[in-house]
């Protein structure tokens, strides 16, 4: 499995071949509280860097899933759409949100840099 990288917007990105899996970090889910609704993009949707491609709603607030680089959605996690609590229980695993194909190189942080950001 490839190394997990992070964005300053509290997302994690795992690139395998030309496909990147994206979710929100464990830190982000803890800040949100119980996730009650996840709105994910349609497959095939093209997006620009920084574009909001999904929403994660908790009882208290709304978080946006921000694209770290331009690309296209190739798969979404239907399981998490049906059971949003997966984002809380497995933010960096079973609670992944989308798989995308980037057309640009995203700017990502390694784990140490991300931990520093959230320390």
């Amino acid at each position, binding site marked *: 499995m490839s190394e997990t990288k992070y964005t300053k917007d509290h997302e994690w990105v795992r690139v395998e071949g030309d496909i990147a899996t994206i979710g929100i970090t464990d830190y982000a889910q*803890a800040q949100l*509280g*119980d996730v*009650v*609704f996840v*709105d994910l993009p349609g497959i095939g949707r093209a997006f620009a860097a920084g574009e909001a491609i999904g929403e994660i*709603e*908790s*009882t*208290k607030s709304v978080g946006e899933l921000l694209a770290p680089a331009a690309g296209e959605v190739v798969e979404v996690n239907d399981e998490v759409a049906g059971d949003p609590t997966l984002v809380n229980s497995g933010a960096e695993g079973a609670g992944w949100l989308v798989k995308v194909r980037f057309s640009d190189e995203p700017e990502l942080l390694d784990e140490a840099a991300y931990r520093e950001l959230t320390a």
Partner: protein
Amino acid sequence: MTATGASPAEATAPETPLLAVHEAAGAQLIDFAGWRMPVRYGSDLAEHEAVRERAGLFDLSHMAELRVSGPDAAAFLDAALAGRLSAIEPWQAKYSLLLTEQGGIVDDLIVYRLGEREFLVVANASNRHAALAALAERLDGFDATVVDETEQTALVAVQGPAALAIVGSIGLESEPLEELRYYRSLPAVFEGEDVLVARTGYTGEDGFELYIAAHAAEDLWRAIVLAGEAHGLALCGLAARDTLRLEAGMPLYGHELSRDVQPVQVGLGRVVALKTKGDFVGRAAVEAGPGEGAPVLIGLTAEGRRAPRAGYPVLDGDRVVGSITSGALSPTLGHPIAMALVEPAAASSDSLTVDVRGSRLPAVVTPLPFYTREARA
């Protein structure tokens, strides 16, 4: 004639006496009106459900306790607040409002009468200094004092169907709690410390609020946790408190209530004693009314799982007619609920929508509260 208490300028950040207890329990803390308070200990949905089904324990030590004493205490509060506080008996509690001269709301309060000449006024943490300042300004001519006891006082709430069983088994020396009626209080002693035990709350469930000296808060908290084990008591944070009060249709200052809103606009006309007492601050403005077309508070429900949130526009057709003041996906009801301030005509419209970040969510005007424990039972 005097008011004492730290002024905002010289005050250091206050701290709940239970901060170490919360940290040890793994609470997630947030800044709330300058206090670090638990927003949740684990799952805010589980905390919400515990209060509806069993019981929850809240630290509300950030709320402001202002003690009003003196021969004119009752007359002073009649002149300073919207309600007729002189009419309540010792140990009775009353929900009241502190109004501006213009009839707007400075804060909403619970007032406990502790004796012929003594009252405890409990204000919101965010309005502690505003409430203290407003009361101090109004003391002129009255033989009474207002003392800010917020930081010497801890407040914990036990709310939920098992609250009586739990609070009844922590070893309080008091009259029988089961005979204590809603909005009544009684003096009690816990391990040698005075406790004011009140049958009040902000959740829509039966429950108690206990006021005790700050230094004794930890022992009281631990005793409640221990007694609660057999009843499924959950430690609850401010997130659950907010969804519970919203379901119960209870207004929150800064959301439904503000200096720009008169009581009648938010369904609190009954709290203003226009007929039973003389002059008080805000009377003339309330008698004149907020003016034609002033927004009114309504309840809204919707389908699905996307919640209208504070600040989202409410539309009738393509016209903005108001905005959401509070909203959430109701944990108990399973659908979105919200309160909104809208043009009077919109209160009877059947074609309202909420602009949820660009998409239109159809919303149905619904009487408040959304939830009552009687309807559920």
